[in-house]
């Protein structure tokens, strides 16, 4: 970005291109992604082949859609721990309604969407009305949804999974749009990858080029000050919680349509992965700073590590170690970068 406004100021020379790049929140994630790619690509020929890329972009996409939504929420100064299980809840609703109650798949998806938005609205209302930390509020909804997912599934089926979506009416159409594949250069890529790119682009536009984006940064940076100049802080936060819930519905539906069955315990533990991807992408835990592109790149790092470890024939347990190491490195790098960038002040 160049300063469109202003005559040339001799002191601007000191804020050179390097510093301008460094002040971008996604820098740490980009460097990390390059290093991780270089490592796995040099070790494994499959990893760098088009099929390999399609393979590791797939987990990056479903994780990335969630990470981008969580990044917006975190920039707005809040957390959502219920987002992971909500992907399970929406998937279970879809499969249960379509298989046991004979609903059309599209209609079942619509019900799932309404429920998800309701959960998001509830999270948002409780947080904004009570001023309780969202960490606690959504921990509550996380546990409640986890209980509902298991309890209802067991009561209905006597097991902990619902399946058989393939036979439901409207399945093929929905699958093609949400869980199909597209041929790019002769290699089949999951269509979720395209959705993920679209979600990232839209989120970036909202953040950087819309009034709502300005408000998101403001309510996360200093809610009191934002309210003092007329920013509708509560409405902004509620919309963010609902956006996260929408993303959970989207990803839950993608996964349900892809596998045609849903485990009742799915999504538990994912909420932290979303937050970690957002933090690797440059989001501050304290809010007011971060980027959607960064979160999307954070998700790519995950996808590469997740599949790369398998390609190298390592034990998958090492993935967790890698996760933790990446998180620590990313937060340290972000802190250093921000300090260096802010030294501009004379």
């Amino acid at each position, binding site marked *: 970005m160049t300063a469109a406004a*202003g005559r040339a100021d001799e002191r601007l020379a000191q804020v050179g291109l390097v510093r301008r790049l460094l002040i971008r929140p996604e820098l740490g994630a980009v460097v990390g992604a390059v290093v991780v790619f270089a490592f796995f690509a040099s070790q494994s020929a499959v990893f760098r082949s088009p099929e390999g890329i399609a393979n590791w972009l797939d987990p990056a996409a479903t994780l990335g859609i969630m990470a981008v939504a969580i990044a917006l929420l975190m920039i707005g100064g809040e957390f959502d721990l219920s987002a992971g299980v909500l992907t399970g809840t929406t998937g279970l609703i879809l499969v249960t309604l379509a298989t046991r109650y004979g609903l059309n798949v599209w209609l079942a998806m619509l019900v799932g969407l309404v429920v998800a938005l309701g959960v998001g609205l509830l999270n948002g209302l409780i947080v904004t009305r009570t001023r309780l930390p969202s960490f606690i509020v959504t921990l509550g909804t996380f546990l409640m949804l986890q209980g509902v997912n298991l309890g209802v599934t067991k009561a209905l089926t006597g097991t902990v999974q619902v399946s058989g979506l393939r036979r439901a009416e409207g399945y093929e159409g929905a699958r093609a749009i949400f869980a199909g594949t597209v041929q790019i250069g002769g290699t089949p890529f999951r269509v979720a990858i395209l959705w993920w790119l679209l979600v990232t682009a839209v989120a970036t536009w909202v953040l950087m080029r819309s009034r709502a984006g*300005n408000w998101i940064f403001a309510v996360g940076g200093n809610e009191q000050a934002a309210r003092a100049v007329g920013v509708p802080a509560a409405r902004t936060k509620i919309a963010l919680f609902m956006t996260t819930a929408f993303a959970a519905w989207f990803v839950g539906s993608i996964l349900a349509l892809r596998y045609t069955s849903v485990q009742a315990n799915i999504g538990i533990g994912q909420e932290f992965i979303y937050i970690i991807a957002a933090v690797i992408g440059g989001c501050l835990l304290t809010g*007011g700073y971060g980027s959607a592109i960064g979160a999307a790149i954070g998700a790519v790092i995950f996808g590469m590590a997740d599949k790369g470890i398998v390609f190298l024939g390592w034990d998958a347990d090492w993935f967790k170690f890698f996760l933790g190491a990446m998180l620590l490195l990313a937060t340290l790098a972000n802190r250093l970068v921000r300090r260096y960038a802010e030294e501009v002040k004379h």
Partner: protein
Amino acid sequence: MILETRGIGKSFGSVLALREVSMGVEPGRVTCVLGDNGAGKSTLIKILSGVHQHDAGTLLVDGAEVRLASPRDALERGIATVYQDLAMIPLMSVWRNFFLGSEPRKGLAFDVRKARRVAGEELRAMGIDIRDVDQPVGTLSGGERQSVAIARAVYFGARVLILDEPTSALGVKQAGVVLRYIARARDRGLGVVFITHNPHHAYPVGDRFLLLNRGTSLGEYAKADISREKLTSLMAGDAELEELAHELERE
């Protein structure tokens, strides 16, 4: 007079926070409100900015009696207040802060180019030399931040600018910078209410001086009627200072 109070007062329960205070604000003039902590300065500005409603005396805007219902009401009448804490977001850029809550639109989008350009122009028109409107507000000095807040109020159509202790947390040089912008706002025809407890900041820039003590007025003076020495001694309470000096002397 754009803004005038006549014998205005305010009580909170049994506490008389403000009694019988009369003052005026003219376009292109600076009215300084001086007083020690607890003198009633903040109660007075909260009445002028619509946060509190007066319960005695009259408040006039453009010569007509009014009762300001809320800060928004005051703002709509052109009375803008810049508080000490400034309502700025440190991690956001200067131009994003400048337009926060009143973003210019272009279709559905926030007109980012216009915002960046106008913020730069407005700051320069006020003589505020910000190196780069893209830098985060948190990297600005205290004086620069005050100046950006003043420029924002001016741009959004303020006719009266109320500044709550804008120089109190600043060093000598930074305070000088802010005083210069107060003069600049005055020269653009705004009426300025400058709240301070420092007569040395008030005297060079002020046209009228309202002195408050323990919730009531010690008088409103035009600059011609009061010398810097008189102002300082009224402010400090010479007798009290002498007593203090005596008390602190070594045995």
